[in-house]
């Protein structure tokens, strides 16, 4: 494997990066002693996930777009 292919993005990296981003937020909250924000952040993340799922393929999509 040459240096360039080692540097390339592996397949399916998106989910791993997303999880890494989320875990960074959680650890930053504890580092900054604002761990009490965690429930709020989880709520927001769930809402974001629902919106993205519904807007991707649901009959409610036309009602979701104006929110974004």
């Amino acid at each position, binding site marked *: 494997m040459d240096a*360039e292919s*080692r*540097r*390339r*993005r*592996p397949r399916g*990296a*998106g989910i*791993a*990066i*997303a999880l*890494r*981003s989320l875990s*960074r*937020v959680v650890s*930053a*909250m504890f580092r*900054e002693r*604002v761990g009490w*924000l965690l429930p*709020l*952040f989880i709520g*927001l*993340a769930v*809402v*974001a996930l629902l919106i993205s799922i519904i807007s991707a393929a649901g009959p409610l999509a036309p009602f979701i777009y104006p929110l*974004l």
Partner: protein
Amino acid sequence: MNILGISADFHDASASLVMNGQLICSAAEERFTRIKHDARFPEQAVEFCLAQVGLNAGDLDRIVFYEQPWMKLTRVLTDVMSRFPRSINQFGRAGRSWLTQKLWIHNRISRAYDIHPDAVRFVPHHESHAAQAFYPSGFEQSAILTVDGVGEWTCTGIARGSRKEGITVLETEEYPNSVGLAYAAFTAFLGFKPNDGECSTMALAAFGKPIYADNVRRVLTPLSGGRYQLDPGFFNFFGDADRLFTPAFIRLFGEPRRPGDPLPFSSTSAPEHVSADQQRFADIAASIQLIFEEVLLGLARRAQALTGLDKLCLAGGTAMNAVAITRLLRECPFDQVFVPPDPGDGGAATGAALLACDEIPATSPPPTPYLGRQYPEQSVVEAIQTLSVESHHRLPGARAWSGRLTHKEYGDENALVEVVAEDISRGSLIGWVQGRFEQGPRALGNRSILADPSDAVAASRLSRAVKQRAPFRPYALSLAVEEAQRLIPGVDLREAARTGRWMQSIHAVNEGCVSAVRQALHVDLTTRPQICSPADNRIFHKLLHAFGARRGTAALLNTSFNESGSPIVSSPADALITFLHTDIDVLVLGMTVIRKAA
């Protein structure tokens, strides 16, 4: 090793490319998209950086983002919750942009450039600022002071920089204790746009007396030992941009100025009538400027006490405040001070890339602001030829001019500068485009509008029909280095090489020379000079001397080549459009001189 630095998602998105520890190129996205302070991901700036040296994204070893978004998100959420439910609107806006975009920057970068996620790095915002100032300074080691609005949580940082050991953060001030945000709030109070109009606050300060200094000290208190304390009861930093202050702030300082309300001050003439309210705004500007200078000076003294070093590097958006930098130079305990050409968030992309270098060379070439794109001479001709096609869609007035332009290409620089100097000395306004465009918001002779600094008619026409600029904001002066000691009494040319080459500081002008450069002076007869040597900018230096040969002073009024609200021009086509759209008389694109036929 090829490292790309990126700043984005707040304002002035930029990209910089560092190869083997050397800064190769840097550009703000706004120069390509033509949207001022464009914060979007700098796709075109990255494309330019790679194309400049013939690289593909696959050739990059690292991509470095200039801050840590997850840390910033904790600050944003904390701020929102501390003001809930008043912050419900901001909550909606912030939640949307964070959850749909900003939080996923790691994935966006990795996917856009097909680069391994581990090769994408994130460095703290203030360390990016520290690196952008320290590494190009050439200092072996120095104290570093970074002061801006806010990064993740940090608003002010004191660090020690060492070529061998890197950058060590020694002390920080955390949000909301931010002198930069306080200055932005006063800027909003005075009716200017925060993160853009701070230069107007600084300019307005020259017309006032700091009679509100004690009031300002109540909201922003310089403490003994060099620290400062902000009273958060007076500020609402998470509010709308024009309301960064609370009702308590208004009770203390009176009603804010509405944006667009007239201010009668002029940098070159005495106003006919100044109302009490207008004078109050000038006095408040003078007061916050004074306290800001005191705070900055205190921080510099603290940095010296903490590091024990005799050199200082300064960065962060507040380092654009040339008046404060000048006071710092005069009164701070450091022997040498360095301020980079673009100390703000745009330049932080450079810092991020430098910070991620495994090894910085022991010696660096002298820093240069000319890091942007250079357009080939051929594109000048193409721009003229395609004017009738492209510009008609973007500029209604272009059709009228397109058949009435004359252009002439010159074979050598000496002939070109003689012709242009003659035009300037006859009162013409010159659009001047040469080589690579500048990094940062200051035009330093590669994307400039030039005029005779003694010509009041030309300066007035420039303000009215080109820049639509408030008369209280002075123009800058570019002068040949050989002229510096005659024009600026007591100027230290070695110091000026660090803080006078890129308009970072201000200087009083010799009384005997005032009339020769009056239109580029402020009301207090100071100027923000670009002291230009042949090594800095050869052809511009020649032009200064060619003008000096005609008018006796090798100095020109220099302002950025743009219209109000637009970024500085980048390509020949941008320059042509601005040329046609305004009252600029002559456009110089490389070696080609274009004129509007009578």
